[in-house]
């Protein structure tokens, strides 16, 4: 049996926005650690891994592990009716096939209760090995979203080059070429906007802009994003939350038509 109470619905709403375009159905795996989700997108190209640690809830109770199969579009529709400041309580039971959501407004004179039907989802976990990446770039998540959006005008794919001077995003297409370079900067005043690079080796890799743009739906969850890269290994795009994270994995593109 699961019972988990979250102080603000806004967090849950943002998480759903961050995953629902990539994934339509997924299991929320509940254990005494917290609530986790891992799923590939429908075309098996990208992987999303989300974790909300139990510390983020108050109270949190989960006496045995539960896999709650949820249609994310439906959940997102239901969450749209929660106020950002509402307190959310999630309840589920292995004997039952629904997820119960209760939203209480701060004044406590409005209670919404939803029962969402669950599904049996036969999903497979992928094992994600620990990797030491050649380059780890921490940057403004809004800046990353903007670059991915801007370059999509030119091409379906972007080449990311990391050196110790900075990170460069380049795209080539029929209109012409474009490149955005962020300098490794100690913009002391605006910590949220600075670009910080940890580098073992220079990197130059190609990625699908369509997927990267999808990942940036997580931008509202964190002002910072981390890109971790090595050649021939999937890119890790991570948005950290106070008590958890959303991680996206995407393999580099291969071949001539990059």
């Amino acid at each position, binding site marked *: 049996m699961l019972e988990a109470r979250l102080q603000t619905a806004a967090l849950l709403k943002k998480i759903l926005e961050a995953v629902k375009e990539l994934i339509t159905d997924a299991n929320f795996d509940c254990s005494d650690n917290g609530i986790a989700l891992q799923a590939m997108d429908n*075309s*098996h*190209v990208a*992987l999303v891994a989300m974790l909300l640690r139990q510390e983020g809830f108050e109270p949190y109770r989960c006496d045995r592990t539960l896999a709650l199969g949820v249609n994310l579009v439906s959940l997102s529709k239901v969450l749209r009716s929660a106020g950002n400041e509402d307190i959310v309580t999630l309840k589920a039971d292995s004997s039952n096939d629904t997820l119960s959501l209760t939203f209480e407004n701060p004044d406590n004179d409005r209670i919404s209760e939803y029962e969402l039907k669950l599904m049996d989802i036969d999903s497979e976990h*992928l*094992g994600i090995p620990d990797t030491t990446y050649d380059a780890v770039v921490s940057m403004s998540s809004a800046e990353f979203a903007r670059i991915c959006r801007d370059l999509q005008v030119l091409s379906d794919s972007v080449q990311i080059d990391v050196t110790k001077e900075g990170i460069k995003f380049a795209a080539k297409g029929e209109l012409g070429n474009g490149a955005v370079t962020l300098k490794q900067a100690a913009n002391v005043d605006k910590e949220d906007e600075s670009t910080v690079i940890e580098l073992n080796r220079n990197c130059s890799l190609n990625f699908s802009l369509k997927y990267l743009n999808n990942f940036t739906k997580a931008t509202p969850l964190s002002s910072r994003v981390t890109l971790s890269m090595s050649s021939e290994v*999937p890119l890790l795009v991570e948005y950290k939350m106070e008590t958890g994270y959303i991680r996206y*994995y995407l*393999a580099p593109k291969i071949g001539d038509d990059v």
Partner: protein
Amino acid sequence: YPRKAVKKAPRDEECAVSILHRVWRSDDDGGTQRSEYLLVKRPNQGLLAGMWEFPTVEQEELGKEKAARLKAKAADSLSDYQHRSQSSDSFLRTRLGINLAECCDSVVRQDLGSATHLFSHIRKVYHAEYIMATGWHWTDAQWKRPKNCPEVEWVSEEALATAAIPTGIGKTFQLLRKLRTGKSGAKKASGGASSSSQSASARNARPSSEPDKSQPSISRFFKHQSK
């Protein structure tokens, strides 16, 4: 997450699906026009055992035919659609005993593009062709079925909706519907043997579900894990 034993990455498979649609005027029914589709029953074992589908040439068979044809007359100019179309012809003739040149008055064929369905370990691409045979005049007696012929049945469009058809095959019928309602930009009737999927219009019309060959699946990198 601890890493576990290796499973294979999903493999790609292609097949050629023929939606054979016969239209005729029945004698016993006031002469109103009738319209039916051909379904074939799958073998009673294996994937999707016993389900009904449109006549389908599987990848293995497609490959063999292509090789044979290439050897015979260096036909490397055969477009993919043409190749599949001929394989379907041959399947209808040799496996089901249907000779399109004899059974009806006229035939219109049309490339419907392709639909993709993901099974747990196979990414299957269904290339669909619509074959409309008008003025069908073969009686059941005239139709000589070969020995190894699978179970076949002609069904109405309404019956299709309730038949036990696998999802992937069902998607090919959706391609036909889309074409008819004009909702998609799918290319229109391109007569018989001269049609080629290489034309400019055809390229735009290809459904976006076409997989991008330069983008590897994430499951080639991370291993499946028993839970």
